[in-house]
């Protein structure tokens, strides 16, 4: 089972939620649940960050998440896994979550592996961009990674 969404509070009137994640991946056959939460941190490249604006190509992001999930299931030969991925869009303030990846699997080793695979691939493949805002009132788009043809 798989759930993916881009959450733009301005449009959806909701924020990314650990409670929703927990509810989605709950499975009495699963002995392991992993929750990865990416938060806006205070310091990046020696700059005091106050918040981040995320932009996303929503349709392509969801397609990419699904593709990465399918690849992960195949790569780790998982018969049963539940995955929940939500990424924020728009402005996210310091300390708040930008992404939640929740995974439930039969055993812990595969849950850790799948969770790690998902976030690492999302970082280099999902069309999402971030603009950091700093304490000195300046802001900048982060450099990022060029997308490759697959």
């Amino acid at each position, binding site marked *: 089972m798989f759930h993916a969404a881009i959450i733009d509070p301005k449009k959806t009137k909701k924020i990314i939620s650990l409670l929703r994640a927990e509810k989605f991946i709950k499975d009495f056959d699963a002995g392991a649940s992993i929750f990865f939460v*990416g938060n806006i941190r205070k310091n990046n490249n020696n700059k005091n960050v106050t918040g981040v604006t*995320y*932009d*996303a*190509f929503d*349709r*392509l*992001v969801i*397609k990419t998440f699904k593709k990465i999930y399918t690849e992960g299931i195949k790569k780790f030969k998982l018969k049963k896994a539940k995955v929940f991925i939500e*990424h924020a869009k728009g402005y996210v303030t310091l300390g708040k979550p*930008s*992404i939640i990846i929740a995974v439930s699997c039969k055993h812990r080793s595969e849950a850790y592996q799948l969770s790690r695979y998902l*976030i690492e691939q*999302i*970082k*280099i*493949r*999902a*069309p*999402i*961009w*971030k*603009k950091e805002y700093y304490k000195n009132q300046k802001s900048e*788009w*982060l*450099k*990022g*990674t*060029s*997308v*490759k*043809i*697959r």
Partner: protein
Amino acid sequence: MKIKIKLFGNCKDIFRSSVLQINFTKNAKVKNIRNKLIEIIEEKYSGNKAYKDLVKKSAFCSERDEIVNDSYVLNKDKMISIIPPIGGG
């Protein structure tokens, strides 16, 4: 033919819009679109190197949501998206 170019991330700020509409000759290629965007940067920003590099490093995505290379011909596409280097999470 009129092509809409959908912009994301830094490209929205550079071109001050989320969509550009540009006239191209029939059977334009992605390469032509990339060059046109670089041309606009040359004119508007006196050839700002960082902006030009961003466009050079960007990928393009067809209407079928597939990443396409510079030789891709926009036969039926009326829109193409420019995908600058990414970095979510």
